[in-house]
């Protein structure tokens, strides 16, 4: 049975990675998961300078999911290169580093430093961050800003670039096409959906950040994510890494059938630290039951049989 997939020229031994920010750089999960069994490790977002993140509470539970407003707390790219990268280089799996920034130049600097440092297989640009040069509007909600940040980062790195799309847009196709035309080698989707929870006892938003808003993730968002993947797969020619609520092998298969070439497991890691390996086992057992000898045969199959 072939489980390996090719994402923008990088071979993953299987189509399962983790969603950025839910798995740190993997070290904490070594108690539960043999990291070499993953197709790739995707790290927490890395910025130019250290980011402190938001005020607590940073998480709120919701039905079938959760809201988070971590605020991309991270120690900055130099600390990442010093502390995390040596560990990641030792793992027998592809390394995807997620990059965040408040300005185009910050994305470029981080991409450049990571490329120079070596041992990184792919970069994933989180374009859901607010662009401080444009009044805090998220890069990924405007096709021009998306195009600009991708094109500029493209100039400073030869690593394959994955652009991670936000679902908080009117037309995700437009953003996806802008990313592709600016030089993205792959897309990942979806980032979290903006949401809010109010504590009825204190009569205030539960999350501690100024706006009281957070990103919704987990099983609750899966149908939205599947729809986004299906829709975008129809209008770009680059591979897609699908994510959003994936908890089981069946969930992952849905994303592959919708057109994703690989999947990422995020919030499910919190409910079950071995969720990644359970998803992988579920994919294998689906393939066995259905006589599928190559996982690549599933990619986009729902699109081909539709209509």
């Amino acid at each position, binding site marked *: 049975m072939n489980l390996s997939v090719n994402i923008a020229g990088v071979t993953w031994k299987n189509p399962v990675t983790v969603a950025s920010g839910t798995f*740190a750089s993997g070290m904490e999960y070594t108690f539960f998961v043999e990291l070499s069994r993953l197709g790739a490790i995707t790290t927490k977002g890395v910025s130019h300078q250290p980011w402190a993140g938001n005020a607590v509470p940073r998480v709120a539970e919701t039905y079938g999911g959760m809201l988070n407003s971590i605020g991309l707390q991270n120690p900055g790219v130099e600390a990442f290169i010093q502390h995390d990268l040596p560990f990641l280089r030792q793992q027998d799996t592809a390394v995807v580093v997620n990059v965040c920034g408040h300005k185009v130049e910050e994305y470029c600097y981080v991409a450049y430093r990571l490329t120079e440092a070596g041992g990184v297989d792919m970069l994933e640009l989180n374009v859901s961050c607010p662009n401080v040069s444009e009044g805090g509007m998220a890069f990924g909600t405007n096709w021009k800003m998306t195009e600009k940040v991708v094109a500029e980062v493209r100039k400073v790195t030869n690593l394959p670039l994955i652009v991670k799309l936000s679902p908080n847009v009117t037309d995700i196709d437009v953003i996806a096409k802008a990313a592709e035309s600016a030089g993205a080698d792959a897309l990942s989707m979806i980032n979290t959906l903006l949401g809010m929870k109010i504590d009825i006892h204190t009569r205030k938003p539960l999350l501690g950040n100024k706006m009281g808003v957070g990103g919704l993730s987990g099983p609750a968002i899966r149908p939205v994510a599947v729809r986004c993947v299906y829709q975008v797969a129809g209008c770009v020619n680059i591979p897609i890494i699908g994510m959003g609520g994936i908890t089981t092998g069946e969930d992952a298969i849905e994303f592959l059938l919708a057109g994703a070439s690989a999947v990422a497991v995020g919030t499910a890691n919190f409910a*079950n630290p071995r969720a990644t390996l359970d998803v992988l086992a579920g994919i294998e057992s689906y393939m066995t039951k259905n006589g599928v000898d190559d996982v690549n045969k599933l990619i986009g199959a729902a699109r081909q049989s539709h209509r």
Partner: protein
Amino acid sequence: MKAMYDAEILENAAIAEDIYDLRLRCPAAATAVAGQFVAVYTDNPATLLPRPLSICEVNDDTLRIIYRIAGQGTQEISQRQKGETLRIMAPLGNGFPLENARGNIAIVGGGIGSPPLLQLTKSIRQNTPDAKISVYLGFRSAEHVILEQDFAKYADEIFIATDDGSHGAAGNAVSLLEGSKFDIIYACGPHIMLKNLAKWADNSGTICYVSLEERMACSIGACLACVAKIRQGDGTTNKTVCAVGPVFDAKELVWE
């Protein structure tokens, strides 16, 4: 070493209003220390995230946990029957440092923050038989008082306060300390109590360790949900309550 377990429920019974005493048979008991906690998983889509609950006592191969029904997750845990298993991750976090546990020791608990201090009291009594251990516990009222007999087994003296004065002195646990001097203080309880105690300890130059609560997702230091603000040089840094804590030196914390 932390791991996932299907722990057998040996007992899960109410001991006070909305407060349960849970005993689990679990191999994590072999290494668990005072101040560490477990994460309890409920397998319900409405309560996806694990519930952090402190280890109250470690006895041979069992972990004792005392919890209050605070919402849907703890409500569901309270419905589990003896003989069933509970999926947990344990032991988590770092316990109370015991190196300086000698001389005059104050152990201060507020309400449902008291349970983890029981194993602490027991461990100090075992390690340092000649220490003088004074336990101060605060509760809302007489019906909410828990673990008084348990603490009495290991403490030299025990003082109880209730908000309404229905059992022991009227007031809170911190008010019971007035006029005393200690070499070291250990505490767990509501944020406001810990904040007042930290100030009291700072004024009297006493070492003070506190165990904090914060909302968690991963419970192993990966997601950065559960941070506490720590002093670092001229500034501050955020450290995880689940992996670096839950016990911190009160002096290092920024009290907001």
